[in-house]
């Protein structure tokens, strides 16, 4: 009896540690390391790279991202989803990402399938209240039952994992194509593409200019805000405000650190808000003095024209879009619940 209890507790500790501490821990650690190396910050910095995907017109890229994301959500067939995923991977390949970028995108995307496979693996077809499966499933690993209360299931099944992998493909296609678009298109080109998605003389379909203007200002000011925040923290530090995390486990020390952190935050907000307000007011003066919003239809100096390659790629994407839509329409692979 004592041995059984011991084994039981040991199993609980083992399962808990593996699935609840080490698993998520590794992912958090990887992301943290990326953050530490500044790779995550660099990831979103546009780098000029004369690759096939970089050269495509932003509007074509936006339409492509829209197409694969939409098809991934309305189609419900493993092969079609795989095909879309491979298309995204190939496009990543044509963008010639460096090792840093590749590592970052992997770490960013990897938690999606892992998470999905694990949780669908234990929850697929599982009725928590009766603790039974409503589908026929093949269990491959049974965790300690107590984990049921934490994880919402405790038996990993092949069917569930398969289903999880399948579902995660949808998110991978959407996130993968979105990240590719964001990192391989200069922000200004992307915004210009969004603003003038379709433009012919004074006819224009796209995001209102005021919105893309605000986004550009945001992009421009975020680094400055970070710099300001950094100086403010330093200014607080040199006046004796400690913001170090204490090594000691003493609760009173931890409480003190927490109080301090709140203090730092409180003190930071005033100068940060004030400097942003001052800056904002200067920006609005400068914008007004350059005739911002003077005319309803402004001119755009740079209006990109689609090249032959752009047209070919666009036509291929449109063809796939129509074909995918048709497949869903005839019910070949429509995601249940999608009404067309």
């Amino acid at each position: 009896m004592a041995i059984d209890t011991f084994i039981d507790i040991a199993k609980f500790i083992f399962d808990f540690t593996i699935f609840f501490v080490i698993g998520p821990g590794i992912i958090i650690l990887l992301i943290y390391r990326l953050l530490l190396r500044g790779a995550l910050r660099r990831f979103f910095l546009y780098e000029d790279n004369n690759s096939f995907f970089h050269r495509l017109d932003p509007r074509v890229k936006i339409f492509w991202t829209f197409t694969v994301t939409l098809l991934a959500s309305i189609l419900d067939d493993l092969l079609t989803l795989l095909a879309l995923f491979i298309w995204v991977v190939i496009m990543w390949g044509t963008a010639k990402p460096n090792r840093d970028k590749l590592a970052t995108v992997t770490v960013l995307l990897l938690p999606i399938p892992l998470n999905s496979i694990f949780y669908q693996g234990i929850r697929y077809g599982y009725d928590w209240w009766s603790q039974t499966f409503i589908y026929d499933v093949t269990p491959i690993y049974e965790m300690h039952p107590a984990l049921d209360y934490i994880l919402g299931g405790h038996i990993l099944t092949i069917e569930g994992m398969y289903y999880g992998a399948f579902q995660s493909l949808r998110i991978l296609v959407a996130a993968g194509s979105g990240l590719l678009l964001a990192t391989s298109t200069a922000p200004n080109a992307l915004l210009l593409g969004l603003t003038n998605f379709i433009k012919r003389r004074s006819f224009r379909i796209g995001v209102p200019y005021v919105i893309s203007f605000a986004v550009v200002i945001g992009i421009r000011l975020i680094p400055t805000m970070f710099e300001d925040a950094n100086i403010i923290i330093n200014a607080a530090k040199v006046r004796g405000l400690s913001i170090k995390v204490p090594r000691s486990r003493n609760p009173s020390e931890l409480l003190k650190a927490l109080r301090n952190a709140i203090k730092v935050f409180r003190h930071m907000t005033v100068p940060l808000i004030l400097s942003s307000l001052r800056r904002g007011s200067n920006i609005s003066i400068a914008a007004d003095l350059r005739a911002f919003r003077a005319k309803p239809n402004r001119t755009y100096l740079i209006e990109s024209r689609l090249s032959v390659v752009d047209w070919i790629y666009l036509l291929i994407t449109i063809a796939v879009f129509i074909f995918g839509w048709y497949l869903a329409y005839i019910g070949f692979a429509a995601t249940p619940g999608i009404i067309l």
Partner: protein
Amino acid sequence: MVKGGVSVSRPVLEIEDLWYKYPYTDKWVLKGINLRVEKGEFIVLTGRSGCGKSTLALTICGYIPHVIEKGVLKGRVTVDGVDTRSKPLHQLTQMVGVVLQNPEDQLFALTVEQDVAFGPENLAMPKDEVRRRVDQAMKDAGVYEIRDRPIFSLSGGQKQRTAIAGILAMEPSIIIFDEPTSDLDPQGAYSVLNVISDIQRRRDVTVILIEHRLDEVSKYADRIILMEDGEILIDDEPHKAYRELDKFLDRGVRPPQVSEAAYKYGGDTRIPITLDEGVEFFQDRVNGLKPPSIETEESITRGDVVIEARDVWHTYPNGVTALKGVDLEISEGEMVALIGKNGSGKSTLSQMMVGLLKPTRGIVKIYGHDVRTTPMEEIIRYVGYVFQNPDHQLFTNTVLDELSFGPRNLGIDEDEVGRRVEEALKILGLEEFRERHPQSLSRGQRRRLAVATILTMEPKILILDEPTTGQDWGHSVKLMEIARRLNRERGVTILFITHDMRIVAEYADRVILLHEGEKVFDGSPREIFSSRWIYQYNILPPYISQLSQRLFGEENTVLSVEEFLNIIQRVGVRE
């Protein structure tokens, strides 16, 4: 262009009895301004902070009253014969352009070319016209070569020139530059001033330059206007304007050193403003006379070494190496200037001295404490650090709270905190503001408050990061005098970072020059300013030092106007 004559043509700008009061205030900021400016004139507008210069600029360009609507405006502003009240702002933007102080606040796109195009695009001009204007503006402002560069990758000077190009593309007949070089290092400031004078000549536009640094800009000016408390005190051609040089000095404005020397020497009808004119002015009087050798100051007896740096390297996480093996010793009671262009490692080195950064290689010791192993709470008992922008370092609701913040964090008892607060208030002349909200003070007062907040911690070493940047001369001198008093009377070791060579010459005992992370000079101000090689680091000695060198040779380099006048007197002047 009309110089010194009476014009019969219509002026490009005419201001008649202009009064202005901001919304919800009782104070007139402009009091009966009258001004007439001809096409192609170059006007330098100066005066202490808060004298109404920037408000005047905003009324000329029509921002007042078109955007700031609720203030009280009396009188009339006419640009090209048009009353600014009668035209919408976007039409006025094509008549008057304004370049602001901080380039960061006036760039709206992500690349140079797109930013320059912003104005003409907003005006919905035909694309060919936008292209023509943008190309021409970029060429005139010297940014054509970098037209595809993203804004964030530009230096301060390049950003400001991009902002200038953006205004040029609007093709206004008047351009107002509101302290366009205040936030730039000397190299950036030099390039911007060059572009401004170039544009004025090439495009025949009217330039109104608001500036404190008259040394650099007087030579471009057709007229200098001195403002005080909303009124125009002096409006004259520079050689004549400086005949009333005392008025400039009394208003905290620093006239060119050459002019100051000539004026104090015993003014002429025509006061020199450039170096060449200064040489000419004094040469006739001292020609052939040998100057007595300058009595160099007795070397100050140095105390114990309090800051020690041995082979210090610092590489930031992004891979940029900011310091490359710097060796340094600073002794108790020294007053040291740290100079070098932006990115030379000045801030990195000074932040190490307060423990904000740690050397990646080498040792920095403060009073014998290694900054790598000593907690920062310990280091800040010795070292106080005042950042450049006061607004980044004021957090609390009253001046008193602000001052007691530091010592309380250090665990000082309340009686002592009270004593220190009172003392700091007195030293920095802030007694009357004790209950005020720090953010309600003027910028100069906020700057002094920022220094006071550090003084209450009674540091033995005080580091000032660009204490005079963006301040008028009066405020700069006030602050530097306080630093000097702390140094002379209390033995506080002072290290200040600056781009202002006049401040270096007049206040530093010792100068350290950093270049690309290496220490390339460490010696007295006289030594550095009498060297020829400093030009290769884009450092220009103060004009008065240059004047003395031209007259008496490099071995007789003076550091201040007073010193120069002293020599002249001892030379015995030929009348």
